[in-house]
């Protein structure tokens, strides 16, 4: 059951009716039961893993309350090892075995039995990070542990966010989940509006571009370098429409219950650098890695030693950057690996890391160059140029997740660099798209871009809410009509969301 399916909306409607019909103090129980019914409907065989996470998190967080600091650290370490161990085995066992056997083949050693396989349960990468973040916060006394195991179960598995996030923080989310909520027209209308907006992006843009992108990367040998480059650009737009569309649907669904989930996007395509882009894209994941991986790594003994080495052999100012560079290298490797157990995703993560580290390293040089050419950071033209450059970098890096293997992504990069476009015509720019399809796509992108521009001034929903009733109705009807008339409803539309596979 994906969140853009009819089944999901029927399920959501039933849950909303029951939620507002039961006694307010029982509302959280309703959400808890609905969440696990949702999970069962998506794959009952994997329910055991979410139970392991819930039970171990509950025991460890409560145990930490009554012990010394040293013991607390041991309990947390045990919990992290167990849960990340489960994640590692379920998600990365096949990948690790494949690589071990490849090395064994090279050195003529005995190959390991690879007949055993595991299926990673839906959403494990998301709920593991959310639960472990909560445990670390309890360890740091940033929040108190929840005494009711069923409430912990709801926090771990709240159904709108369980499969693809956003990765919530206990202090922001838990109180909302457990509180009673009265039915409010504003929450209901804002929630529905947001769901419609998510469906608009998903059906009109993402699902229309998805077969085009898949075709370009699958048959990359049949296209020249202009189409390959455009394939990367189209994939960037497709993924954004897909992932942010999903977020709009789940945030909208939660809003109907009076629950505000953390935002995952802040108009990322207006970023002027790759580092800024990552602060505005998949914010809850970047925030998790920053708080629970980057900071501990950057103050670790290894990072401090690395910093001292930098200060001794280079200069004090360069040496200061070394701990951050050390931590960033590991964080970007982990980010790549988190997305998928494959070398092409690791390469994608490493490439992101190299660009961000290089920009930190070369910042003094950039500053001198800007002074030389009298370029001011406040200059609008310069800022726009930086925004376009960042979008192109993000797009070009899509060559790694876009291709189906590391070898293919490297071939595509080589072709994009060394070849020149053979012919520029409609088919090389818009392969697989007829004129009417292109018109629908452009319509969707223009509306999406317009909303994103306006969003920088104020939330569009606030603007719509200020309008008179007939105008608001027209907006709703316009969105529904656009989805029904211009949306893609086929096998691709019910095929789920890109980020669910992570």
């Amino acid at each position, binding site marked *: 059951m994906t969140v853009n399916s009819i089944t999901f909306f029927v399920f959501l409607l039933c849950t909303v009716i029951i939620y507002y019909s039961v006694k307010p103090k029982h509302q959280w129980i309703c959400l808890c039961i609905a969440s696990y019914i949702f999970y069962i409907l998506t794959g009952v065989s994997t329910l055991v893993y979410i139970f392991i996470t819930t039970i171990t998190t509950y025991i460890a967080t409560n145990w930490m309350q009554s012990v010394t600091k040293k013991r607390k650290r041991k309990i947390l370490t045990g919990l992290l090892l167990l849960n990340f161990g489960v994640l590692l085995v379920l998600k990365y066992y096949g990948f690790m075995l494949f690589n071990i056997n490849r090395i064994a083949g090279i050195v003529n050693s005995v190959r390991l039995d690879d007949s055993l396989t595991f299926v990673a349960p839906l959403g494990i990468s998301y709920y593991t990070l959310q639960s472990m973040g909560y445990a670390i916060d309890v360890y740091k006394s940033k929040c108190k542990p929840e005494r009711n195991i069923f409430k912990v179960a709801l926090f771990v598995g709240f159904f709108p966010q369980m499969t693809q996030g956003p990765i919530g923080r206990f202090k922001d989310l838990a109180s909302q989940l457990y509180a009673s909520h009265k039915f409010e027209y504003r929450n209901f209308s804002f929630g529905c509006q947001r769901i419609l907006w998510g469906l608009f992006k998903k059906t009109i843009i993402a699902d229309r571009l998805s077969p085009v992108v898949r075709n370009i990367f699958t048959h990359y040998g049949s296209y020249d370098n202009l189409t390959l480059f455009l394939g990367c650009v189209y994939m960037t737009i497709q993924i954004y429409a897909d992932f942010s569309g999903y977020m709009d649907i789940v945030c909208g669904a939660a809003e109907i219950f009076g629950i505000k989930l953390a935002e995952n996007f802040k108009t990322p395509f207006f970023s002027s650098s790759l580092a800024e882009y990552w*602060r505005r894209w998949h914010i809850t994941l970047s925030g998790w890695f920053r*708080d629970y991986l980057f900071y501990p790594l950057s103050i670790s003994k290894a990072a401090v030693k690395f910093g001292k080495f930098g200060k001794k052999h280079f200069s004090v100012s360069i040496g200061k950057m070394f701990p951050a560079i050390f931590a960033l290298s590991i964080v970007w490797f982990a980010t790549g690996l988190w997305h998928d157990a494959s070398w092409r995703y690791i390469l994608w993560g490493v490439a992101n890391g190299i660009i961000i580290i290089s920009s930190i390293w070369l910042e003094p040089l950039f500053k001198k160059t800007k002074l030389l050419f009298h370029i001011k950071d406040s200059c609008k033209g310069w800022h726009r140029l930086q925004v376009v450059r960042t979008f192109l970098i993000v797009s070009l890096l899509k060559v790694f997740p876009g291709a189906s293997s590391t070898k293919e992504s490297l071939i595509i990069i080589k072709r994009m660099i060394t070849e020149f476009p053979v012919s520029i015509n409609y088919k090389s720019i818009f392969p697989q798209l007829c004129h009417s399809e292109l018109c629908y796509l452009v319509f969707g992108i223009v509306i999406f871009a317009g909303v994103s521009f306006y969003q920088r001034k104020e939330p569009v929903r606030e603007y719509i809410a200020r309008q008179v009733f007939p105008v608001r109705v027209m907006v709703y009807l316009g969105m529904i009509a656009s989805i029904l008339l211009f949306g893609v409803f086929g096998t691709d539309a019910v095929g789920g969301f890109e980020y669910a596979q992570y």
Partner: protein
Amino acid sequence: MKELMVILNELRPEVDFSTETNLLDGGILDSFDMVSLIGDINDTFEVELTFDDIDADNFNSAEAMWSMIERLKSEG
């Protein structure tokens, strides 16, 4: 406190650290600033910040940072 203000003003000259109370939560100090700041605090005040100390409560204002430094110094 004076030494801390020198470090902060060197790090981000455009920020008024005497009045700002939302440095970390408000995103005024980014993660790179934080790593650089932690290194400077460790070196200047001869303390050793741990993961437990990296918290918005300790870094949202210059005053909060100074309280943390004094606490760490007293703990030895």
